[in-house]
């Protein structure tokens, strides 16, 4: 038993809180564990052990390092893992600094600030590593059973990577606080965190974006891997991959690196962490700029509702970063539309439809369902239908505005194809918005990322609409290009039936949103 008031005792408390939030489904939920969640998780985990057993048994104990290609591929996978860990750690460091949770209680206690910071950092690292441990720890367990001890390296490697990610995230966040101030840090760190998660996607697209000429560009990732082959096998770059494959020296180096980074982070920044917390406490208060106040009371109900919704989304950097991620995925597609002489019309139309529908779904969920003051709207004499119509307009107009330019270009280049793409884009955006309007459940904005869990029916209908309109876009372009066979025609019919059938089904399942 750890003595109360020590760092170990505090770490135990932190891990208990982490377990409660995990077992009860989400942070802040009642601490009673949801045994169905735990049971299902355990079953999946046991299943994973079985699958890993079959895999390792088939591979057998291999001596020495595996082929070079495998090490290179593993390096890429570990890089991706580290970037996802960093993204998650940035989110957690912002939460620790700005949402505070129990920080006021801890800082007002006689515990040394160094212990508090150490425990918070360790908690962050554990939280970041947990997901990867769930999937990769079976390798260590089964490896032990089969006598393949090198797989035990999974544990130290993942913990070292998690500590590195947590330390880097905390250093970056505190550095931003020093550089930009607490208020701007929250915005920047959230956006950086979201972009870090999308970095690999951009990397894979970079080659395509930079390619010139009419020929197809080789995949960027393949070129990266090809260039990695010219690096000497003993390079430090391959150290994590070698550690993952059980190279004892590599494990030791990575483990020590993680530990030293963690200790140095604690030693160098624990005082500034407290100052950062103090700065963050007052960061919600934005200093007023000097100037006359502008009064604009001449707007109609439609205008005030639309403007209010856009302001609420635009001024929420966390939401914007999550929505912008979707636009980020749209960007390479748009560049393909502008760049290539030989347009891949079915791909472009299908992709645009999917992405616009997806963006429309996000915005309509936020605007239609995540209303901050529903009582204000309901107690006002404004008609519910008028408010809903205004909110619907607020959610679809930005999507149409964003896609207008690529679509206009497409119509100019290939009028029929552009027109068909415009129809399917409009169909997907309106379909997802109406599904949310009719079947969605009111929620808080903070639940945006987990909105699918709140209303499974809405999510399924949304997905059905999205996929069917995208398939329709792809098939319509194929049919417009050349005559097609019976199978494609049947596919077109099925896609059209699902796309058009989703809305009546949503209407039948509707319940009042307000």
């Amino acid at each position, binding site marked *: 038993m750890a003595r109360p008031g020590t760092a170990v005792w505090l770490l135990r408390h932190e891990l208990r809180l982490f377990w409660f939030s995990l077992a009860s489904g989400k942070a802040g939920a009642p601490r009673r564990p949801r045994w169905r969640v735990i049971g299902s998780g355990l079953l999946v985990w046991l299943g994973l052990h079985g699958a890993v057993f079959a895999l390792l048994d088939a591979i057998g104990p291999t001596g020495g390092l595996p082929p070079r290609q495998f090490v290179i591929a593993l390096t890429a996978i570990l890089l991706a893992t580290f970037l996802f860990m960093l993204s998650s750690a940035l989110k957690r460091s912002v939460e620790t600094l700005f949402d505070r949770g129990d920080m006021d209680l801890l800082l007002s206690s006689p515990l040394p600030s160094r212990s508090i910071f150490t425990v918070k950092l360790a908690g962050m690292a554990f939280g970041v590593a947990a997901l990867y441990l769930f999937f990769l720890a079976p390798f260590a367990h089964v490896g032990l059973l089969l006598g393949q001890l090198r797989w035990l390296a999974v544990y130290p490697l993942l913990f070292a990577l998690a500590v590195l990610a947590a330390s880097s995230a905390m250093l970056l966040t505190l550095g931003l606080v020093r550089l930009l101030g607490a208020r701007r840090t929250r915005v920047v760190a959230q956006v950086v965190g979201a972009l870090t998660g999308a970095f690999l996607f951009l990397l894979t697209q970079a080659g395509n974006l930079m390619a010139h000429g009419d020929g197809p560009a080789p995949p960027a990732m393949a070129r990266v891997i090809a260039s990695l082959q010219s690096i000497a096998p003993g390079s430090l770059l391959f150290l994590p991959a070698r550690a993952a494959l059980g190279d004892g020296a590599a494990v030791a180096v990575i483990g020590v690196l993680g530990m030293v980074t963690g200790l140095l982070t604690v030693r160098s920044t624990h005082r500034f962490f407290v100052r950062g917390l103090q700065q963050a406490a007052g960061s*919600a208060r934005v200093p007023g700029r000097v100037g006359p106040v502008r009064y604009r009371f001449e*707007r109609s109900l439609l205008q*005030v*509702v639309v403007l209010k919704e856009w*302001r609420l989304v635009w001024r929420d950097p966390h939401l914007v970063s999550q929505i912008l991620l979707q636009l980020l995925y749209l960007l390479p597609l748009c560049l393909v539309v502008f760049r290539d002489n030989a347009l891949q019309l079915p791909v472009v139309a299908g992709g645009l439809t999917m992405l616009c529908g997806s963006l429309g779904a996000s915005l309509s969920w936020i605007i239609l369902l995540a209303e901050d003051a529903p*009582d204000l709207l*309901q107690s006002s*004499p404004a008609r519910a239908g008028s408010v809903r119509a205004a909110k619907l307009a607020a959610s679809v107009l930005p999507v149409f505005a964003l896609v207008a330019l690529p679509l206009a270009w497409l119509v100019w280049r290939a009028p029929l194809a552009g027109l068909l793409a415009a129809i399917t884009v409009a169909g997907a955006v309106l379909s997802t918005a109406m599904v949310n309007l009719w079947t969605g459940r009111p929620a808080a904005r903070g639940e945006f990322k987990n909105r699918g869990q709140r209303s499974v029916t809405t999510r399924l209908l949304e997905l059905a609409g999205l996929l069917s309109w995208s398939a329709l876009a792809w098939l319509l372009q194929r049919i417009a290009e050349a005559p097609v066979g019976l199978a494609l025609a049947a596919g077109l019919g099925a896609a059209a039936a699902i796309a058009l059938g989703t809305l009546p089904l949503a209407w039948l399942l509707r319940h009042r949103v307000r």
Partner: protein
Amino acid sequence: MPHLPALALSGLVKHFGRPAVDGLNLTVARGELYALLGPNGAGKTTTLRMVAGLLAPDAGQIQVLGIDMAADPVSAKRQIAYLPDDPMLYGKLKPVEYLEFVAGLWGIDAGAAEPRARELLAWLDLEKHAHELTEGFSRGMKQKLALAGALIHAPQLLILDEPLTGLDAGAARQVKDLLLDHVAKGGTVILTTHILEVAERLAQRIGIIQHGRLIAEGTLEQLRETAPGATLEELFLRLTGSA
């Protein structure tokens, strides 16, 4: 129709598994400041939410200035402003933007809304925070802004649920002055409060509700007739059986 009461509730019933409001009859005259008191869970907030049109009663009738809430909710709501204990604000809006939104919901003419907004912001000392987002406001500032939003359309009937909770002395004084001014200009105020001194000093009539029913009603003097010399707190505790 100045003879009609500002609010008339008859046989109002609302059940949430158990009765929250149980055959409540209540009449509040125009130009009156009425305090509705009661222990926790007595049905005060449920009553106010039904009057504001946020909850539909299971039975009974609500009339606001003679307008039946069930038959013509839009007209009834035009006369009402409701301010719950947790202010209905948008953290990412600035004060003027919030007032513009509320004025838009109530369809207020720009010519009337703008001077009213200027006056309210100045009165409540919020002008110097006009460029700040409300998410950074203190509890008192939020409450004052919500009150400004409630008053922007010059409602006939102002309904407030615990309007002074969490306010400092200065902010509480500003809110009380605003309520008294509203009544002095012919408006009606119904408020709930756990701070009995507020009811004692501000209210012209006091109603005490328990288990969803009105158990006592009258001016402070009328209530005291049952127990001469007693304070409102003593009366309240005795009537609700909390003593």
